């Protein structure tokens, strides 16, 4: 395999993983924030629903990052046990 091909493959793999991750976030965000913010679906998204959705998206990312940190700390604690 030529040298150029290898780094190309690596970039592609990284990019595909990033895309898959973004898709997962997007899909979860839609499901969770729809459940939180749209109680009774009306004929359009009203102002308060839109505001709720944007707050929900921000809190979604905050909590995702917090959980990533908490999990990282747990993994480190488990590793230092062994």
């Amino acid at each position: 395999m030529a040298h150029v091909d290898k780094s190309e493959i690596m970039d592609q793999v990284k990019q595909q993983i990033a895309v898959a991750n973004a898709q997962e976030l997007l899909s979860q965000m839609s499901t969770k924030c729809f459940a939180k913010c749209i109680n009774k679906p009306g004929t359009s998204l009203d102002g308060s629903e839109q505001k709720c959705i944007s707050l929900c998206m921000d809190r979604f990312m905050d909590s995702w990052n917090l959980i990533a940190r908490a999990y990282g700390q747990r993994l480190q604690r488990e590793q230092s046990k062994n």
Partner: protein
Amino acid sequence: MSDYENQSASDKELQEFMMIEKQKAQVNEQIHEFHGICWEKCIGKPSTKLDHATETCLSNCVDRFIDTSLLITQRFAQILQRQSSGGM
């Protein structure tokens, strides 16, 4: 280095890269799972920031979920062992 050595070094590097990326993807997948569970447990109505109680709930949620999984795994193994040693 000969062509052959060159290639096998390159393959090895690629294999290592794929292994690391796979591990990172698995950790990421795990975070998605924890988040899905703990969001339901801890998040009420979305507000302008995560309050302190919610942050504590989220981080406890991750740890207690892992504890629960470990406990269940251990107990499940015991059940299987008891069954296979003739108990049923």
